[in-house]
């Protein structure tokens, strides 16, 4: 009889366990390392302040573009350009946060920073007045790269650019398209910021479990994805021709501006490294982060913690990038080898993040059954 009871209990245990293991997010946990604290630090000291900073700079940019559209002249053009660069640099601190509303908008960054722009789409839109910036076809005809085109590349020199918005027969078309672009950017950005401020923050912070859909795991994946794709490939690798048979100097970020592709890349790398180290956006304090998590897990190699190795690799990549021409297109044309050296330095960190760090965190990715071999 006891045997029967044992058997039934065993079966009940099996059923109980097999049904409970799929349960999803929620419930902040705290072992010796508090992952919830990591998420709190990310949300409160990095993500939300970065978005607020970006949001206000974008609003300023919107105002100066409205002034330019109202009275196009050299001085309003320059004001718009200045604020464009300020906002573009602030954007480098938020592009990696493709989570929550940003993701739900069918990838917010698709509407903000896909480059190079397709000039033909923009010019056709300007001529016909027929365009829908909400469709995927126009991902590469809006956002910062489209502003780059309007403010720097739409004509040969400054006078001619101003003329596009004044004396050109299609000037109204240019004004309308430019206004549509900045309005779209502002609208989407406000949606993302509002979402963070109205509940998503708590949802993000409380989802610290190790499941494929928890915000901790998604954030790690998003962070690495951005570093690999948004930073390493888009800013350096693709224009340097790493993925093509020949270099593509016209694929650099801020191509029409022609002076700031290095500056933007360095901002992006700083943003990545600050997130890695849990450094507050406003101020110099640091909190729980991937770095402190790796230290807690004691992931050491050759007497060094993996976080130190990763930081050293970031620093190495930075010094390689700093040695480049401020305009990557120029660098690619004059000496592309330096670009690929910078790419290699960035790539080595991809391996540390994607292989060593993810392995240490043992992020669960529920593809299929696995017995670990």
């Amino acid at each position, binding site marked *: 009889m006891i*045997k029967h009871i*044992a058997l039934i209990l*065993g079966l009940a*245990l*099996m059923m109980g*366990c*097999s049904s409970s*293991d799929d349960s999803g997010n929620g*419930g902040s*946990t*705290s*072992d*010796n390392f508090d*992952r919830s604290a990591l998420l709190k630090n990310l949300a409160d000291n990095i993500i939300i302040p970065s978005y607020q900073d970006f949001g206000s700079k974008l609003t300023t940019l919107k105002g100066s573009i409205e002034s330019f559209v109202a009275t196009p002249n050299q001085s309003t053009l320059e004001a718009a350009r200045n604020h464009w660069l300020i906002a573009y640099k602030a954007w480098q601190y938020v592009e990696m946060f493709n989570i929550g509303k940003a993701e739900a908008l069918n990838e917010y960054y698709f509407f903000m920073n896909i480059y190079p722009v397709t000039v033909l789409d923009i010019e056709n839109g300007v001529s016909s007045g027929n365009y829908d910036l909400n469709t995927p076809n126009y991902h590469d005809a809006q956002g910062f790269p489209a502003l780059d085109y309007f403010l720097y590349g739409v004509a040969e020199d400054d006078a001619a650019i101003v003329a596009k918005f004044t004396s050109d027969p299609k000037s109204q078309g240019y004004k309308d398209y430019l206004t549509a672009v900045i309005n779209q950017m502002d609208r989407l950005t406000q949606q993302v910021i509002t979402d963070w401020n109205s509940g998503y923050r708590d949802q993000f912070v409380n989802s*610290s*479990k*190790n*499941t494929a859909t928890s915000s901790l795991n998604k954030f790690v994946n998003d962070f690495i994805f951005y570093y690999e794709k948004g930073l390493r490939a888009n800013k350096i*690798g693709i224009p340097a*021709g*790493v*993925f*093509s*048979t*020949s270099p593509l100097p016209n694929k650099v970020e801020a191509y029409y501006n022609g002076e700031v592709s290095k500056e933007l890349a360095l901002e992006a790398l700083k943003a990545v490294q600050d997130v890695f180290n849990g450094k507050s956006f406003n101020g110099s304090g640091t909190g729980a982060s991937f770095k402190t998590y790796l230290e807690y*897990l004691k*992931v050491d*190699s*050759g007497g060094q913690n*993996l976080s130190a*190795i990763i930081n050293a690799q970031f620093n190495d990549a930075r010094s390689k990038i700093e040695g480049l021409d401020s305009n990557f297109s120029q660098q690619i044309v004059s000496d592309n080898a330096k670009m690929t050296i910078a790419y290699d330095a960035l*790539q080595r960190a*991809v*391996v*540390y993040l*994607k*292989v*060593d760090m*993810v*392995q*240490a*965190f*043992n*992020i*669960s*990715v*529920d*593809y*299929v*059954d*696995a*017995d*670990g*071999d």
Partner: protein
Amino acid sequence: MLYDKEDSLNDLKGLLFGFMNTSFKTYLNKSTHPAPLAVFRIGFGVMMLLSIVRFWWNGWIETLYILPKFHFSYYGFEWIKPIGDYTYLIFTVCGISAFLIAIGLKYRMAIIMFFLSFTYIELMDKTAYLNHYYFISVLSFLMIFLPANAYFSVDNLIRKKTFTAIPKWTIDSIKLLVGIVYIYAGLAKINSDWLFKAMPLKIWLPSKYDLPFIGNSFMQQEWFHYAMSWSGMIYDLIIPFLLITKRTRWFAFGLVVFFHVFTRVLFPIGMFPYIMIVTALIFFDADFHLRILDGFKRILKFFRVQSAQLKAQSYHYKKQTLVLPIITLFFVFQITFPFRHLLYPNELFWTEEGYRFSWRVMLMEKMGNTTFKIVDAETGQGFLVDNSDFLTSFQEKQMSFQPDFILEYAHYLGDHFRSQGHKNVQVFADSYVALNGRLSQPYIDRTIDLYKEKESFRPKNWILPFHDEIKGF
């Protein structure tokens, strides 16, 4: 009673020394009641049917076999590929044969169909390789030669006869196979990473922080990682003996249930724990199984057929002289094949030459990052490949740290770009791999044109050295 209720000591002897014993012939002529084999057949069929349904339900037929553009093949089995939407048909055949096995209808045909369809599925793409899938293939092959429908089967009703005795070795052969699996899995755990570094459990267990009760306590403790490593090794090595010995059998079964349920909670290993629990029932005596079958009979009382209506007799192989050599060869293979890694000079965990099909379960935490460069040999110009253009994320993950995957994929890329008009195609891999908590290090010689390298069973000299040593099996 028609079957002998031997004591455990003889059981043990029969299993371990049966083949060497002078009383080999006597052993072969021993018979036993077929109830354990019947319960095993039912359990196997039901578990397999559930596995297939679950696989289908999760959409894995689509994601693993239909969607990928490219499939990783086993060396020598390149001709086995998914067949588009007809792949569902293979799973249907597999599911139906599992059901037929469970009810014991046309058993011999059903188990052959099952073995073929299941093995075909496993050979379609090695990305999804799991030791327990291999176990199912091997077990179903063995079952082709066993009279698992001798008792409590629909075949009995159709033929109007049932068997009250079958050769004892038939049941023992399953026990032996299960014993080999456990013992080899235990031997593989006798290595310095597992025992003296608690790797990879030291990586895996702390990440289970969200388990109730134990997540934030035991799972974070280093001593617990070591305790789990050592007890896992000891469990694997002694559980077959505890199951064979009658005195410890219930205790052992309790351990089996506990161990496998625990691993199920910790790791995404699907149906495997349940299959092993059901499999362990084979070690129990016939009267235990008869009681289980009585339970089934009560449930099925509408379909109940008085066994008195069936002619009862003893089962004898018509061609035992043919079957026995096959079974013997099968076990010789099972015992020797997992040791083939001894023929390779390099670290087994690093090169994985001889790693699969040898019951090395959950021994490694290994990840990699591998990118490929297509180069024109004449001009030296080249470009990197975006792996996601060709592979699913799961395929890319598996490809990145396994040399045979890397080579096969390199050839696929070479062929692809040549057909696109690229000339003088060379394929180079830039690969980093991290094993059991060691920092990632270069894995593949990046100066070697992989497009020129051929797959074979010979050691792969383009894998870079490991620069460390893992002692043990």
